[in-house]
């Protein structure tokens, strides 16, 4: 049992599921949904079992590793393995897929594309998402990184809203542009590894152990970083996100913003920092400035939005600013906070997008001005939306607070004034969430809303409830995630040769150690 290839199965199972779904007869929409849901639940269960067998004590090492030769001529291996950070991100991905399928049960009925195709695309995407987080071979990572684009392109372009082809094309071009730069750096990395060790390799651990000349590092770093900055997205590479999120179905938006974008920040933490430590330190001031601009700018633009989905997308731009900030301040609080933030943001944005999706599909419009007084006619919908919104504004007691505060503390330790500016983001967050809530949910209920909007069905509650439970639970007890993330962060900190700055006053042992 110890040699059970957990990760290979996690990658392969959704792919097999996608093929099975496509082989179903043409009219079997319901069966396709059921197969997809059951399979994704099984995959999630498998992830949980794997996570329970994960050894938190050595979470800094890659566990459940497998490696098969793939293209021996270039030293490319099909190599998978997880450390603490990728474990929690895989868990995030596999947990969101069944929720998305359940919540979007009727989203694609009667749309242009077939239901079977939708389910199959989502399962394919799941496989690529697991793969991208689990890859320990940089080339394999790149392949999964690009492979994610294909299902998402079709999910937006075929099942999306009115401007879907524009949005899908924009998303694809942006991502491909970043991907190409990364490919160039990847090849450069291979050549450099061949120069240093004699045989070229794509193995992550080997590459991370190389000491590359700082100038070369910078060039290679830029290629990786731009790809990740587009994916994350950091200002000013963000404008594809609002379009893509607004035009896709809620489920696609959840996977896109909740998981796919995390590959960007995950990549910064894992690949930029560990492969190019000198270059990362060199770029830190620039990245921090971009991140802080992202936090404030994203929030301000979100306040000015008139469309619910675009508003949520811009809040994510702000949140990704926080995540990138935490990664690059090079403190353990910042990086653990960012890792936790990736998970928390996944859940809270998922809840926001899904509930907004329920609301929009009922009313048939996504303009904030078309709503009002929904709380009167749909109290459960309004209540869940409020909780999701409060999680987005990082209310203490909900999960995002822990991560946001860790990021801010981590920033404060090294760059106090940057921390002060970033903290302004919490006021802006309150404004964009509550303004949207006030305009859509409170006040007198217009007749058209009264006629069209009704409360959540049992299925919808079932899809949302787990998200809200996790949001509250991780707010009060983030320990399970932090315990596996911390050792992995320690490894990254070691790689970039950074240590936490000590406090101004040496702590009294009796005071802090309880």
């Amino acid at each position: 049992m110890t040699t059970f290839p957990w990760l290979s199965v996690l990658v392969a199972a959704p792919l097999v599921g996608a093929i099975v779904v496509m082989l179903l007869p043409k009219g079997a929409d319901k069966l396709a949904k059921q197969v997809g849901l059951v399979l994704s639940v099984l995959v999630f269960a498998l992830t949980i079992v794997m996570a329970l067998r994960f050894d938190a004590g050595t979470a800094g090492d890659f566990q459940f590793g497998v490696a098969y030769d793939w293209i021996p001529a270039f030293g490319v291996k099909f190599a998978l393995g997880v450390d603490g950070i990728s474990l929690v991100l895989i868990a995030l991905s596999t947990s969101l897929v069944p929720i998305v399928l359940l919540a979007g049960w009727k989203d694609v009925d009667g749309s242009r594309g077939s239901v079977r195709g939708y389910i199959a695309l989502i399962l394919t995407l799941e496989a690529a998402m697991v793969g991208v987080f689990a890859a320990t071979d940089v080339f394999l990572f790149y392949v999964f990184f690009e492979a994610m684009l294909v299902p998402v392109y079709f999910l937006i372009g075929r099942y999306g809203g009115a401007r879907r082809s524009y949005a899908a094309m924009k998303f694809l071009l942006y991502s491909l542009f970043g991907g190409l730069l990364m490919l160039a750096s990847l090849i450069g990395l291979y050549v450099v590894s061949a120069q240093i060790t004699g045989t070229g390799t794509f193995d992550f651990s080997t590459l991370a152990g190389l000491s590359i000349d700082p100038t070369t590092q910078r060039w290679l770093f830029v290629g990786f970083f731009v790809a990740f900055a587009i994916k994350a997205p950091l200002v000013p590479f963000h404008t594809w996100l609002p379009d893509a999120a607004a035009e896709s179905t809620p489920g696609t938006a959840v996977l896109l913003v909740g998981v796919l974008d995390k590959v960007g920040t995950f990549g910064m933490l894992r690949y930029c920092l560990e492969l190019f430590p000198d270059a990362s330190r060199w770029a830190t001031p620039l990245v921090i400035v971009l991140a802080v601009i992202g936090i404030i700018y994203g929030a301000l633009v979100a306040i000015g939005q008139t469309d619910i989905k675009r508003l949520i997308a811009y809040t994510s731009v702000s949140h990704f600013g926080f995540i990138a900030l935490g990664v690059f301040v090079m403190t353990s609080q910042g990086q653990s906070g960012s890792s936790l933030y990736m998970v928390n943001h996944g859940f809270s944005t998922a809840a926001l997008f899904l509930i907004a999706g329920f609301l929009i599909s009922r009313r048939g419009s996504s303009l904030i001005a078309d709503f009002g007084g929904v709380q009167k006619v749909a109290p459960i919908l309004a209540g869940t939306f409020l909780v999701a919104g409060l999680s987005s504004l990082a209310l203490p007691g909900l999960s995002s607070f822990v991560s946001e505060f860790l990021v801010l503390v981590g920033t404060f330790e090294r760059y106090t004034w940057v921390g002060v500016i970033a903290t302004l983001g919490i006021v802006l967050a309150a404004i964009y969430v509550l303004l949207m809530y006030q305009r859509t949910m409170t006040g007198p209920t217009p007749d058209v809303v009264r006629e069209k909007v009704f409360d959540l069905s049992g299925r919808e509650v079932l899809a949302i409830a787990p998200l809200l439970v996790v949001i509250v639970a991780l707010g009060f007890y983030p320990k399970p995630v932090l315990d596996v993330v911390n050792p992995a962060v320690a490894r990254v900190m070691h790689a970039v040769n950074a240590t936490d700055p000590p406090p101004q006053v040496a702590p009294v042992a009796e005071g802090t150690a309880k």
Partner: protein
Amino acid sequence: MSTFSGALTHAADVAPAAVAASGLFSLTWLLIGFPLAGAAVLLLWGRRSDKWGHWLGVLASAASFVVAVVLFFGMLGQADDSRTVRQHLFDWIAVGTFNVPFDLRLDQLSITFVLLITGVGTLIHIYSVGYMSHDPERRKFFGYLNLFVASMLLLVLADNFLLLYVGWEGVGLASYLLIGFWFVKQSAAVASKKAFIVNRVGDLGLSLAVMLMFITFGSVTFDGVFAQAGSASESSLTWIGLALLLGACGKSAQFPLQSWLLDAMEGPTPVSALIHAATMVTAGVYLIVRSNAIFNAAPTAQTVVVIVGAITLLMGAIIGCAKDDIKKALAGSTMSQIGYMILAAGLGPVGYAFAIFHLVVHGFFKADMFLGAGSVMHAMNDQVGMRRFGTIRSWMIVTWITFGAGYLAILGIPPFAGFYSKDRIIEAAFSRGIVVGLVTVIGAGITAFYMTRLFVMTFHGKKRWTDDVHPHESPSIMVVPMAILAVLSALGGFLLAYNNAIFEWLAPVTGFEEPHLAISSLGMEGISLVVVIAGAALGWFLYDRRPVAEIAPAGNFLTRAARADLYGDAVNEAVFMRPGQYLTRSLVWVDQRVVDGAVNGVAATIGGLSGRARRMQTGFTRSYALSMLGGAALVVAALVLVRL
């Protein structure tokens, strides 16, 4: 006052180290557990709990009160230095050196708050059963109230600043939900949002304070911070103190973050009584008193605290003079009274205990008066305009008596409660300096004026209400809590201050010093009593002897300014809201036109160039043939050239 003269001077800058909770004190978590469970059941169980939900809410709060009383007596049985207990529940956040346990701390200060919150809270729960009996959403109301009680208890029981922050925003959330309880009214929805956002500005201060503490001390627990407060640099401590003050200003509606409190009166009256008078808005005072070790070592921050308190004290009092809405007049009064507490808290060890004492007493009499106001509104078809009240005493004699007790208490007429608490603050203020002292005395005079105005306009004078209003006394479920609070307003001050009991009790946490005065405290009390009586007489003369206009007269400049909340909202609107709106709109434009425009521009340029380039495909076979030939010739020429 001679009865209090005892040689009391504790130098308790550093609170005694906490002992681990055991035995009786391991019940501490139940204080929060009961109302939290109540809130969870009421909010998650939905309509199924409509029938009995309100009683569950009362029960949860009452159970918490019982536990609090038991714990209090348990503490009384302990020696003075082992009364601080810490209950470790679990490890909350641990990353690197950032270690935050989920610990509760029970000491003299927190148990005082716990008793106030659960005691007054339970009374207001009971009152609400009657007050909200016609509201279809009553169950939800009690769910929110329980959530509030749980958060507030977490705030005062937390053993570190980050956990305190959780309670701090938790009460903000409950306040948001309750102000916006009648969310169908646009004004209520806007007021609740405003309250939350203004509070968030304050929370920003608290966040910064916590982070500054961490980078200064490497810890955010009370023990970890306070034990080393002396060894940090004064500038660090000043910054921490100012950040804490910003937090306190937000929560306690102090200048410059005062604007939300008056709007918060959109909420149901029991909410105004519990949250926006007795408990939540005093959290800022708690924060400053709790952080006394920091403020004691940061005199600049203390001075700012005193200034903020003094400004708000006068602002609130002036606003209270001009409001015709009974709840808003009371809200102005709340601002003003909390100004007193903040001012006292800024005075250092000489004022901490008085601030807390006044806070407790204020909790009694202000809750009493708000409930009284609710009772009047209940009788007057939910009207709030005092110009349409008058002579209600004859119909609502019990409300008149209970409100009267609160009225005399806030004026500080002996032996009512405010007399003991307010005069101690005035004494302490004079020991700081003559200006600060004068502000407090003038504030007391204005307080007497506007409270008298409020009292006589509501209960005395001539009938000014329309004929469709039929005043009647409230049901006993509302009257009984009012009566209990009236008794507390009348006797609470004397009982608590008897033999300096409450000061001695708090001294190990807050420290305590007798104020040193140039004149005897008896003379001091005489002066303030004269000022108070003068203010009250003026109010009585203007609003009882002379007829009250049913439509508010235009008034002079000061009146108009006070009616407009001294232009606090206007300033906010001009300085933050409008430029903010302009900024967000222009950024949206920039984002669409400039950032996205650049992207789309690149795409359009490439598209245009390709459009030009494809014109080369003319469709004429012979021109293709020519270009092929030309290409071949070029290749040959190149080869030849290279050879050469």
